[in-house]
């Protein structure tokens, strides 16, 4: 029995090590003065300083951020509506098709999504003359399409757990549906909307394959640039970028945990005082 739990512990420790060792090693080597990955040449911030002067990289990062913010926002709005419609509307016309279309992107190989969207954009340009060129707009459209699927999943699971009596009460008191929706439903859905937005934002910021297909000359996102660089092996400036992203993610996660922790304890206190 002892031996078995020791084995279990070893496997678990190995699993967590697997998840974190690569990340930690990148962070450490981002401060390495030497260009060689394994040789420790002393502590240095030269790769970070180098990033600041790299206009190509900064431009790509800004483009990626812009696409991520816009696509996450639109995807959250559209996804929330789809989730609500699927959850609340009885006998929705074309319900099966809608739920199929909205879950399929979750399991679709990215490479096919990218290829098929590119063909769509080319055919559209042929037929109606739009889009005239591919770039930030086409990438944003592609990202909205697959992010929406994730938002729907997140919002649906929140809806399934939500108490609808508050909305019903507001309706009974004569609230207009739109007003009730924005005053009651949206605030109640807020945690799901925020995590849906963050998920979409991350997925967009991270996407390499689909962007590569639907982008055109002149629009290089951060992942596209990184991919072009790392295809040739390890480059220390990418280590520095990774470290910056890790720090940003850590700060965001800590903030989210802090906020939701406060919200939860506030919620508990409120229900306790009400009950």
């Amino acid at each position, binding site marked *: *029995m002892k031996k078995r739990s020791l084995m279990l512990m070893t*496997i*678990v420790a190995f*699993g967590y090590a697997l*998840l*974190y060792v*690569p990340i930690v*090693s*990148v962070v450490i080597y981002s401060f390495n003065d030497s260009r*060689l*990955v*394994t040789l420790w040449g002393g502590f240095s911030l030269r790769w970070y300083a180098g990033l600041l002067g790299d206009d190509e990289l900064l431009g790509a990062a800004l483009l990626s951020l812009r696409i991520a913010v816009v696509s996450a926002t639109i995807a959250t709005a*559209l996804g929330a*509506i*789809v989730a*609500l*419609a699927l959850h*609340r509307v*009885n006998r929705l016309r074309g319900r099966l098709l809608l739920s199929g*279309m*909205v879950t*399929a992107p979750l*399991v679709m*190989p*990215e*490479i*096919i999504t990218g*290829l*098929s969207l590119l*063909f*769509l954009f*080319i*055919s559209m340009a*042929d037929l109606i003359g739009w889009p005239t060129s591919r770039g930030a707009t086409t990438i944003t*459209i*592609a990202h909205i*399409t697959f992010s929406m699927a994730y938002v729907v999943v997140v919002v649906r699971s929140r809806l*399934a757990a939500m108490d609808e009596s508050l909305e*019903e009460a507001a*309706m*009974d008191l004569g609230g207009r*549906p*739109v007003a*009730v*929706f924005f005053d009651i439903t949206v605030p109640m859905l807020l945690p799901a909307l925020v995590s849906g937005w963050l998920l979409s934002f991350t997925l967009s910021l*991270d996407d*390499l*394959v689909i962007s590569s297909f639907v982008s055109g000359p002149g629009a290089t996102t951060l992942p596209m640039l*990184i*991919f072009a660089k*790392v*295809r040739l*092996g*390890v480059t220390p400036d*990418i280590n520095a970028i*990774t470290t910056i*992203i*890790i720090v940003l*993610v850590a700060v965001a*996660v800590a903030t989210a945990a802090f906020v939701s922790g406060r919200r939860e304890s506030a919620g508990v206190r409120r229900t306790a005082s009400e009950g």
Partner: protein
Amino acid sequence: MTDETPNNGLRTQRWLRRAVTLPYLWLLLFFLAPFLIILKISVADPIVAQPPFTPLLEWGAQGLAGLKATFENYAYLFVDGYYGIIYLSSLKMAAIGTLLCLLLGYPMAYYIARQPPRRRQILLMAVILPFWISFLLRVYAWIGLLNNRGVINEFLLWLGVIDHPLPMLYNDFAVYLGIVYSYLPFMILPLYANLERHDHDLLDAAADLGARRWQGFIDVTLPLSVPGIIGGCLLVFIPAVGEFTIPALLGGADTLMIGRVLWDEFFINRDWPVASAVSVVLLLLLVVPILWFQRLQRREQELGR
């Protein structure tokens, strides 16, 4: 949903019904239409033009000239044994990667599910956390570790365990490692969701009746966790088959995975009809696991209510 005051419920419903038109049209245009186009192009002839394929419908002098379709692109896939080998190799690599993921993920999910609630949250968070850091960068991180002059090899050389570097990068081993590493959370989460629901009284009962712990696991826990196992495996297997980034960065020249071949067919050979046919066949291969997964999810949703 079972509304006592149907009037109000209906008003919201009417509003939602109208609002959903926009995302509906969006998905029809940007999700469904592209697939029809891919189907169309996969039966077109490649030509040297922009776009480099023949149109499916041609308006001739005598009206609609007729459907111009060719199955040559598909025939090419099957006559040329190369693609058959790549499909098989992708399926094999995804299957082995999934199995390895299960072998590591199951014990982890099992362990997490048996911790006290507070620790459970922390351990689960630790599994999900890396997911928020760029997938591309996390795969990249392995290049520095697995290199011939990478951290692991240098460490082993320093220990004296090996006297020349182990080839760990740019081969199938690196791809398996990449799959396990990248998809581990997708395996652990459904397994955990399943294992967490288990009634420990069942195990206690089994123990009371004299079952050894190992036996209890085989007879009780394992059979009960089958839905979680299937869910986790499908969640890893489906994306792994069409994976591009992992074989492109960690795989060797001889690592045959369809995602990478498709990329090359499109970006390097610029043969769009063949690339389309390749994707249609890939989708057909994935239809069964995808439908299976969707059925599983629906059942899960019904259970959740």
